[in-house]
């Protein structure tokens, strides 16, 4: 996962400062005009995409902004594109399996880095951060050679899923930041009751960490869902293993796709992400800790 996802989404939900007496001052009007304009500008691409996806074949290659006929069937036609359902399935498998494996493997690591004292802990954290910032292209060539020549697993998504069973640096980092904030008393109490470290983690800390886990799960899910480079390298030789990102680009580059269908497909791929985000906002509210930005 790249550092691009370093987003304290909790900040989205922070309380807005209390309202002052609303004065219809020039400042207020100006501010809100700017706010509305910017908001509209940001929504505009979605609007154009949606409008175009409803255009007829003939109209897409014109400069018209507004559909003359409303071809709602385009949205359904996208699903009939050969491979589209396969890409959906593959992306879902990759995202779900990847998220589950990441959580299961990263949590203990984050726990150890947050709560255990040991020599080399700072070094380990340094390595975590270094791998977090590492572009995947740095190690892709030898990794690909191993997957292709030794393990013969190219043309599948396994080379992308299996490494996630060994922890993901960004998830480890986020979880660790959160786990640092848990007061030690809870764990001590559990230990007094006879729990070993592992059970203490599992039965006491994990339930407390639900919001952090939810946030990390979401970030990992989005990362897998949006991944293009990974599938391009490992899955491209087998169309049955393509994901939505790669399939969409490959198909457009190949043939037969007009802008209206392409935009409809784009919508179909962006929508799940946005829908999931809307429902999961609540999960973030209790606060994923800031990523140590204040340092």
């Amino acid at each position, binding site marked *: 996962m790249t550092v691009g996802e370093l987003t304290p989404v909790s900040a989205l939900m922070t309380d807005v400062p209390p309202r002052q007496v609303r004065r219809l001052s020039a400042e207020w009007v100006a501010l809100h005009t700017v706010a509305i304009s910017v908001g509209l500008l940001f929504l505009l691409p979605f609007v154009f995409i949606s409008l175009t996806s409803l255009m007829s074949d003939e109209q897409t290659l014109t400069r018209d902004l507004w559909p003359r006929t409303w071809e709602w069937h385009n949205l359904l036609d996208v699903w009939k594109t050969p491979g589209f359902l396969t890409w959906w399935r593959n992306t879902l498998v990759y995202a779900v399996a990847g998220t589950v494996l990441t959580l299961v493997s990263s949590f203990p690591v984050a726990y150890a880095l947050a709560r255990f004292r040991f020599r080399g802990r700072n070094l380990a954290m340094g390595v975590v951060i270094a791998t977090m910032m590492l572009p995947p292209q740095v190690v892709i060539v030898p990794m690909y050679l191993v997957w292709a020549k030794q393990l013969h697993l190219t043309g599948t998504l396994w080379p992308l899923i299996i490494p996630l069973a060994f922890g993901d640096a960004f998830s480890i980092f986020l979880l660790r930041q959160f786990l640092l904030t848990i007061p030690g008393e809870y764990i001590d109490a559990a230990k007094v009751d006879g729990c070993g470290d592992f059970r203490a983690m599992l039965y006491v800390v994990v339930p407390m960490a639900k919001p952090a886990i939810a946030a990390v799960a979401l970030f990992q899910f989005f990362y897998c869902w*949006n991944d293009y480079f990974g599938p391009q390298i490992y899955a491209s030789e087998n169309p049955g293993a393509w994901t939505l990102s790669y399939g969409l680009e490959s198909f457009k580059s190949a043939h037969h796709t007009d802008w209206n269908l392409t935009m409809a497909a784009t919508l179909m791929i962006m929508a799940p992400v946005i829908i999931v985000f809307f429902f999961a906002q609540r999960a973030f509210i209790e606060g994923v800790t800031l990523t140590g930005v204040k340092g």
Partner: protein
Amino acid sequence: MAADTYRRRERVRTLLFLSPWLLGTGLFFLYPLASTVYFSFMKYDGFSAPTYDGLDNWVYVFRDYAFFWPALRNTLWLVLVMVTLRVIFGLSLGLLVTKVKTGAGLLRTVLYIPFLAPPVAATMAFAFLLNPGTGPVNSILGKLGLPEPGWFNDPTWSKPALTLLALWGVGDVMVIFMAALLDVSKEQYEAASLDGAGAWSRFRFITLPNIRPIVVFSVVTGVIQTMQYYTQPIVAGKVASGVIGGSGQQFEPGYPEKSTLTLPQLVYNLGFQRFDTGSACVIALVLFAISMAFTALIMRRNAGLVGEP
């Protein structure tokens, strides 16, 4: 004795907890990194056995490879322009969102969501929006009588077009600044207002100094992100050029005219299109060096990232 056993048990426990990550780091980071260094000195086409080649690949990449220096120049452009604009725009939006009272929640969400859009989908959407002939943007510009740039098809406009796409997805930067701005104590502002300071002075002398570490952080992470900038430029080039790559024509990296080339794309071009594994590893090491240099910078400035805050 008992203390020793306890410590030993502790170490075993620590190792157990860390084991998946330790294995993963060894298998997926240390080993491939060592391999990359190894292969950078070899001639290997992925098929016949590798042969030792000395510094040949290094000389080729730095002296003869036509895409290397354009990619570096593009990276510099992206760092100077895209990262700067993202930080400034993100800060401005952060300020806007913290000042607006009515509908702040809705505004925040609207500004954040484009960041979540899958990069391929977002890039293709922008490739359509900015299509010089049929896209809505040029259509509107034309109606207003303004010049219509070639965007993704014009080498002078392709990076600005990518920057527009990056600014649309500025949500992550905006949110970081929002959090930082909300942390600045109200008392400071009130005291300054009482002293008669205007909005701009308040911004310059209270806001900016307080959020300076965040600005630095955003800039440095922006640079690191630029080292990873792969999907958007490659997809934009492929879609805009319309070249299929199957009817006997090669896919042209960096369309148009090498203007969208970035270092990660070179690894793909050398390693997976030309099958020059050695040179691909050279570029990979350059990427590694630059990313790690900036990562070290971050870790130095934000010791709290590594140690206890």
